[in-house]
């Protein structure tokens, strides 16, 4: 059997083919196969793994273009899915910056998570001393999204991210925003919804690729729809952006659930910018938003750093 692996050594990209006996790997998982190659054939091959039990999210890679969680995928499954093919192409997750071979950079994704303020701000009636109370129904509403292991498989498949990542975040970021906004213990869902809106919520093209590949069967696409509904319900529905948003929303949620091609093109090309700016201006006028919140909103130490970041942000925005 052949494995063609996409490699990157920090300077150049290339492909390398590894030949292994089927009998050596057929009882293994995909991660097991990668380990087999590294430990027997090529010690320079790099990838990440930690738990080998499908819970830490470290081992997401692509096989023939589709994302898989390496330790959660048996080779027999792959043989079946690809009709006993004897060659597989293994690549790093798409829509991430590759550090080396199959290892990708998670730092930007973590900073995106920071933006939606994933930490719960509990209702005033709850306290650190006594904890919270939540009934089964309320718990059931959020527990699915808590399965997210931050493996990045959804982001790898996301068409919107591939088209233009400058005004969008990884699908799981919205999932996490939804899980906390939708939590009955949460004081104010808008703490998380607002930054989601400001960071691309309406730019999802609803292709559902993220949902198709999530190893935990989470649908970020649905979570995005949920966040949108919440945003509209909570009054983020006036101004230029939200007007577009509204028609977009009607299109998706109440209509066919799919965008037609023309609107899709329109949205990815131009409307998104107007939408974001529009919403942001509305919010700022209403005094609801500190413009610096786009950086994550916490206190920033050091004036110099602050100025520097604002400059950097301006520069980045201009591009």
């Amino acid at each position, binding site marked *: 059997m052949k494995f063609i692996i996409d490699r990157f*050594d*920090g300077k150049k990209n290339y492909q390398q083919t590894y030949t292994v006996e089927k009998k050596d790997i057929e009882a293994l998982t995909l991660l097991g196969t990668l380990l087999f190659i590294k430990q*027997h054939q090529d*010690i*320079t091959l*790099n990838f*990440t*793994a*930690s*738990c*080998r*039990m*499908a*819970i*830490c*999210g*470290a081992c997401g890679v692509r096989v023939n273009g589709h994302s898989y969680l390496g*330790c959660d995928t*048996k080779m027999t499954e792959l043989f079946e899915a690809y009709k006993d093919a004897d060659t597989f192409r293994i690549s790093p997750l798409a829509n991430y910056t590759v*550090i*080396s*071979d199959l*290892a990708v*950079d*998670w*730092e930007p994704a*973590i*900073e995106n998570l*920071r933006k939606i*303020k*994933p*930490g*719960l701000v*509990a209702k005033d009636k*709850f*306290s*650190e*001393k006594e*904890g919270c*109370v*939540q*009934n*089964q129904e309320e*718990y059931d509403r959020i*527990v699915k999204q*808590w*399965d997210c292991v*931050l493996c990045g498989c959804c982001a790898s498949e996301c068409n919107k991210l591939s088209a233009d990542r400058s005004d969008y975040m990884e699908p799981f970021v919205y999932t996490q925003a939804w899980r*906390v906004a939708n*939590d009955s*213990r949460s004081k104010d869902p808008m703490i998380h919804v607002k930054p989601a809106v400001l960071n691309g919520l309406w730019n999802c093209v609803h292709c559902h690729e993220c949902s198709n590949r999530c190893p935990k069967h989470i649908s970020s696409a649905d979570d995005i729809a949920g966040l949108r509904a919440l945003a509209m319900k909570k009054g983020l529905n006036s101004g230029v952006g939200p007007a577009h948003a509204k028609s977009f929303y009607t299109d998706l949620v109440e209509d066919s659930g799919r965008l037609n091609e023309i609107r899709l093109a329109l949205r990815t090309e131009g409307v998104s910018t107007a939408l974001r700016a529009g919403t942001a201006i509305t919010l700022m006028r209403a005094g609801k938003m500190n413009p610096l919140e786009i*950086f994550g909103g*916490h206190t920033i*130490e050091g004036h*110099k750093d602050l100025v*520097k*970041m604002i400059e*950097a942000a301006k*520069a*980045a925005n201009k591009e």
Partner: protein
Amino acid sequence: MSEQFTRREFLQSACITMGALAVSTTGVEKAFAASSTSTPNSSGMPTCDVLIIGSGAAGLRAAVAARKKNPNLSVVVVSKVMPTRSATTMAEGGINGVIDFSEGDSFELHAKDTVKGGDFLVDQDTAMKFATYAGAAIHELDYIGMPFSRDSKGNVDKRYAGGASKIRCNFAEDKTGHILTHTCLDDALKNGVKFLMDHHMLDLSIENGHCEGVVLRNIRTGDIAPVRAKSVVLATGGYTRVFWNRTSTPYIATGDGAAAALRAGLIFKDPEMLQFHPTGVCHGGTLITEAARGEGGILLNNLGERFMKRYVPNKMELAPRDIVARSIETEIREGRGYGHDMEAYVLLDVTHLGKEKIMKNLPQIRHIGMLFENMDLVEKPIAIRPTAHYSMGGIHVTSLDTMATPAPGLFAAGEAACVSIHGANRLGGNSLCDATVTGKIAGINAAEYAAKAGFGAGKRLNDLTLKWTSHFKEITGSGKGNVNDMYALREELGAANWYNMGIFRTESKLLALADKHAEFQARYDAIRIPNTNPVFNTAYTEYVELGNLLLASRAALMGATARKESRGSHFREDYLKRDDANFLKHSMVTMDEKGQMHLDWKDVVVGQFKIEERKY
């Protein structure tokens, strides 16, 4: 300016004030100086007020606590992986802590079970305080967003865990650790904690008795650099990978913290106390957690007997881990298991719980059954065998009040630390709250210390950095060496430790292991890694980790050989009895400059719980 610049710049400028480096080694300055935003400080080394190594529950809680204690301090979490890839994520069963007193449970009972479970090697004052803090920690976790499973009243739900006299193991389905980690990450992000991921701590530097910082390797670039810190918290997790493929823990549990502490002249306490979990999957050691037995799962031998009735009739499968693990191994040894040699096993059966209950309360466990044994727990019992699971031993910490090591400025927390909560055997559910509780205390105290302290001179730190820089060159520079040398040695070390220092130990086995260790060390020193690329050289990372495992193995062996008694997880077939007259004390291992190890002892603190025979 690219978008990447914005993010990187933001992350790094706000967290570490990286100056131009004093250490002039190729490449190093580039990595840090490129992101340098502020004027160099007096010594020119990168600095940070509170530096936390490790991003499991202990590290993340320490970081938040430090930020809350003093928001003016820079707090950075360093981790060799992405924050959520830690061992904490893998915990399933639950987290102990008394929050419901209606059925007669109390902090004292929790402490008592902990002391008894730990076979009295627990410092009793510590256990008592720990139990109190554990209760508070559960509410706090709930408050910061942890979605615990709920009882009918909407309160945190709980289940039985082995060795507990009351039901006090709080849980979030069977993904408690995963959910806990993500809750703690969210809270850390909320509190402005910054991360340096893919950074490997190689060593820490103690000068004039004070901790002055650590040597970090940026795995992404290969740059090795010193970082000075006013205080450092080691939250690097355990060292159970000394049994390489017979453990439930992740690949990263290589005892880096304990090894660095040893090299820096600190104390590795109770290193021989390694816990074996009774139920790993037969192939690969991955865990079928206590939750399975907590929910009512039973163990069966090849005669179809529920054999635990022979060993602990009143507790059966819910007896403490060490006892269940030994019972299983005994069954296998006496021919009542299935299979042979390393492939031998007994069965764990949950089928009688019914599909609905399994799907609701044990979904993760079922999944593991599918993945590793290719079978559905709903339909069939699963093949299991004991697996190394937890390190009770760790970096010696003087008291639970501060989690400080004897070296001012250095703190330790979680599984990496040993403040003697778990003694010779940890109870199920006690380590998540250990990590949560001790992490927080370490963070608070590290912040308090940092607010008052200054930076060390960093001279020794410099020297260490230079040493590591040339080490990288020496090990990888020639490009020579065989692919499999290191991996083969790692497996051999694991197997040798398992057979000679595993569940059953004897003098002769331990002495034989000492010879093996000497041979392994010599082979290790001669290994060269055929990868010259500094970028993400994971083979070199693994090489360094293997060195740490060797060191941890040697320390554990020293303790295991000297402790001529059986206590908790440390079971000597040649000294079957617990010997309180001689060994009611902690083993304290240190290493001198020449690499020679020394053993000392420290008395256990006895309190309100009477020392008695451990019977169930």
